[in-house]
């Protein structure tokens, strides 16, 4: 198709397709594009502000145009525990005793790859605003990170920058980071994942704040940091693949100021608690544009905005820049006129300016004025409701990497090596020093884990646990998705993304209550990516329904591809769970000698390991298998409450042996006496768990009574980790190795 150079350039700048342009002109009742004498399409009647507004709100990042039709399936998972807040910034779950929690996970992948510190920091800032804009005080954060190979060029710097950024922001605002997951895999080499989750609490008498603008004549109030040129076109950037020139996008990355955010949290919660605000929304992606149009569209009203009143850092800023700036730490509120002075004085006390920038009007138009001129006059629905919805092509999921015999999944060469006298020991020590398996202490000890006085278990545990202030019940937080399983099979990986973290908290006696997702995928215009996306959404819905843990919020990040190479599709999941009290939670590691070590198996599916030469699985994970896993999870939860259960742990990546050796983190070893073969020690099986139990407890009988198959592996002992006569490792040496591996690689960068 031939286009005039002016039009071609605009379509490229604003990342709008020709078909979308035709749709926009039709909505606006403007003349359709016409062809000139040279058969070229001529430029059209849209001013820069109109182009900019459509570009932002019709971007993938803001509109979810490729995913919306699939995301609707999550609605069927909602049950009576979900507080109705449809279309809001985050989901709300009623915990049944007056308190409600608000939670969500969001990606900040693209900015973090370009500028790791600020990218990660503003990711945390953004998700916190999604929480407190609902009136909830943020009480905990979690993160889900994927990096490339630990030894490749920039990776150390990226890990270091991201971790410092998360800490630098989260620690300052006083929200503890209590759990997380960090993966290393070559497929994230050119496109890392930085997903941040936050949980907020609404206590008994606190109301959920909403974002629908209401009340003709009410004032539109801007509060927070001044608007600068940072982050202009950020939403559009996040909707695009990386090319070789991604460094040039550095100016698109926003800069955060956690000090401002802290002031915003306290002041916004104060105005909300005093019922001074009709509606509130943070200015996230596409800044003032998305907040104003979305608030107007949701409230079915119009809005008049005067950009001359918006506080700016740079007086030369143009209307489209003010509208699209993604400067951080800004909120937009709708306030009744007589409450404006009170709102302003309250913000002023916190040192923040609250400025009236517009008014709600009955005519359903958002009218934008700048230097006395009307720059845009648009129906908010055109931007929000009428945004295109794409049904990108996809095919029903078909598993391909099926193996008949589980032993074929093992690395045959490795098996030979392991039969050698020192084979197992060498393998264990080598694995334990790899970034993927090394203790993540050097990372999470840079996060404040206890501010707020609710933390019962921080990031040095498998499951983050908070003690709820009013009811004294325990709230658990875990994140999941194991990328190497997604690489093997998207359905299996997505089922596991929900099941594995749910198993982890069930072992500690928690019941999963709700889910949030952060769907990180490649280019949705490629059918193989869309196939994985749809399979993942379906698998999440399926497990969510079985667990009765609704999916209350989420985020989609597409175009995670660089130079045509897509990341492993990664649907990261955050799970929130509840337990009646937090007494006698089983530990994660060996803490005392002389205890029995048991294994419980549900060996339905075998998979290859991350580094194996052949990738695949063996077994069935159809609907009935998923049901049986969820049933099994319930039984494990019952067993976890048995007195005398001192510690337990899911068998994770690397198989039984690696999972067991990681339990010596507690400073106590164990001796395995059961006749386990090498393949039994290394095989990756979904799902197994290890239990450490007092000898006086009839654990085996209790497990059998619940229909489980217990197997006594050995017992804990001081000083040594031993596998019959095959392998013997000093606990102290191993601890040093495992604790220091990651420290060495990042501390060399300080």
């Amino acid at each position, binding site marked *: 198709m031939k286009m005039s150079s002016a039009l071609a350039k605009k379509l490229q700048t604003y990342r709008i397709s020709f078909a979308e342009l035709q749709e926009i002109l039709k909505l606006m009742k403007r003349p359709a594009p016409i062809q000139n004498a040279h058969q070229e399409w001529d430029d059209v009647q849209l001013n820069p502000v109109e182009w900019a507004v459509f570009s932002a709100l019709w971007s993938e990042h803001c509109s979810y145009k490729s995913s919306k039709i699939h995301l609707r399936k999550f609605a069927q998972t909602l049950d009576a525990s979900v507080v109705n807040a449809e279309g809001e910034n985050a989901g709300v779950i009623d915990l049944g005793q007056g308190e409600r929690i608000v939670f969500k996970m969001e990606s900040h992948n693209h900015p973090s790859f370009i500028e790791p510190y600020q990218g990660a920091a503003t990711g945390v800032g953004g998700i916190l605003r999604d929480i407190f804009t609902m009136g909830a005080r943020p009480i905990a954060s979690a993160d889900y990170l994927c990096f490339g190979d630990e030894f490749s060029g920039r990776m150390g710097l990226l890990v270091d920058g991201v971790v*410092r950024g998360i*800490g*630098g922001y989260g*620690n*300052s*605002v*006083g929200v503890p980071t209590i759990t997380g997951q960090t993966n290393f895999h070559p497929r994230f080499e050119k496109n890392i994942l930085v997903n941040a989750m936050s949980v907020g609490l609404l206590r008994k008498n606190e109301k959920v704040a909403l974002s629908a603008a209401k009340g003709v004549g009410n004032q539109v109030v801007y509060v927070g940091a001044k608007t600068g040129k940072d982050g202009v076109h950020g939403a559009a950037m996040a909707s695009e693949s990386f090319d070789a020139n991604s460094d040039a996008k550095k100016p698109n990355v926003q800069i955060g*100021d*956690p*000090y*401002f955010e*802290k*002031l915003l949290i306290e002041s916004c919660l104060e105005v909300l608690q005093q019922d001074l605000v009709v509606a509130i929304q943070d200015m996230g992606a596409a800044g003032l544009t998305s907040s104003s149009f979305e608030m107007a569209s949701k409230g079915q009203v119009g809005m008049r905005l005067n950009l001359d009143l918006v506080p700016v850092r740079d007086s030369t800023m143009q209307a489209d820049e003010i509208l699209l700036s993604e400067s951080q730490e800004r909120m937009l509120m709708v306030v009744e006129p007589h409450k404006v002075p009170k709102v302003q004085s309250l913000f002023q*006390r*916190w*040192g923040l300016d609250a400025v009236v920038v517009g008014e709600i009007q009955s005519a359903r138009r958002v009218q934008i004025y700048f230097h006395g001129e009307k720059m845009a006059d648009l129906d908010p629905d055109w931007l929000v409701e009428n945004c295109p919805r794409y049904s990108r092509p996809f095919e029903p999921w078909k598993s391909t990497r099926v193996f008949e015999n589980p032993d074929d999944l093992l690395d045959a060469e490795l098996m030979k090596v392991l039969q050698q006298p020192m084979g197992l020991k060498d393998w264990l020590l080598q694995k334990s020093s790899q970034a993927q398996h090394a203790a993540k202490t050097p990372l*999470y*000890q*840079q*996060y*404040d*884990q*206890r*501010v*707020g*006085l609710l*933390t*019962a278990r*921080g990031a040095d545990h498998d499951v983050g646990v908070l*003690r709820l202030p009013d009811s004294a019940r325990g709230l658990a937080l875990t994140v999941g998705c194991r990328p190497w399983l997604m690489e093997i099979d998207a359905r299996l990986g997505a089922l596991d993304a929900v099941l594995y973290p749910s198993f982890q908290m069930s072992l500690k006696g928690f019941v999963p209550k709700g889910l949030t997702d952060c769907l990180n995928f490649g280019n949705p215009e490629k059918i193989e990516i869309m196939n994985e996306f749809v399979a993942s959404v379906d698998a999440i819905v399926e497990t969510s329904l079985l667990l009765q843990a609704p999916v209350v919020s989420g985020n989609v990040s597409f175009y995670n591809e660089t130079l045509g190479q897509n990341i492993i599709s990664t649907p990261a999941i955050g799970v929130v769970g509840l337990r009646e009290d*937090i*007494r006698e939670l089983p530990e994660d590691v060996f803490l005392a000698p002389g205890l029995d070590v048991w294994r419980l198996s549900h060996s339905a599916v075998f998979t290859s390991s991350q580094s194996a030469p052949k990738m695949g699985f063996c077994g069935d994970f159809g609907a009935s298998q998923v049901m049986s896993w969820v049933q099994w999870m319930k039984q494990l939860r019952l067993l976890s409450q048995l007195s005398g259960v001192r510690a337990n742990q899911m068998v994770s990546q690397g198989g039984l042996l690696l999972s067991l050796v990681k339990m010596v983190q507690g400073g106590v070893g164990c001796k395995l006496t059961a006749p386990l073969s090498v393949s039994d020690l290394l095989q990756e099986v979904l799902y197994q768990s290890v239990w450490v139990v007092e000898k006086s407890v009839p654990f085996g009988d209790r497990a059998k009574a619940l229909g489980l198959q217990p197997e006594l592996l050995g017992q804990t002992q001081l000083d040594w980790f031993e596998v019959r006569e095959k392998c013997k490792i000093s606990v102290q040496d191993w601890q040093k190795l495992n604790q220091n591996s990651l420290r060495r690689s990042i*501390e060399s960068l*300080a």
Partner: protein
Amino acid sequence: MTPASARLGVVRFPGSNCDRDVLSLAQVAGYQADFLWHLDHFNIQDYQALVLPGGFSYGDYLRAGALSARSPVMNSVRDFAKRGGPVLGICNGFQVLTEAGLLPGALVKNSSLRFRDGWVDLVPENKSSFWASQHSQWKVGGQLKLPIAHGEGRFYSPPDLLRQIEDSGQVWFRYADNPNGSLANIAGVLNETGNVAGLMPHPERALWDWMGSEDGRGFLR
């Protein structure tokens, strides 16, 4: 003074983030506690004790604690301390007190140049006239387990000042295992009269067994 009638003021700077947590510490000890705003003076007669909580006051801009030390509320804090009133600075509050000249020394970036969260064991050294003076661990060989969370907690002072601090019994606590490179393993110090005290670890984060330790309770009598 019975705790039930005693009032404790928690100084609130913009960016303080342990202010609400310190209210819990005071309430557990039976005090009435309320916030003192950084822009206001207050009547020093109204309070029996003051705490400057942790956080990132004024965003830690310039130097941690430097801007807060010059805010209006500190005039009242100074008067209160001069008359022998008990003042405690925790973490950022400690940094503010050194910047305000109410405590000796300075707190600089951790030797790792990184923020550090974790548990530490503290060895009690010299008693404050008020803070933790009745603590059950205050006996030879006793240690306190408290959490730390700071990026700028390395205690520093010039050699002669350090000698003076040591000689005049102004070292309050030392780390059993130094987490940040502090000189002489110093975790907390006192002023010469022992009524003003500051430490980097957080007593308010160790109030109940489920938090990991209860050793913070004894800081208020």
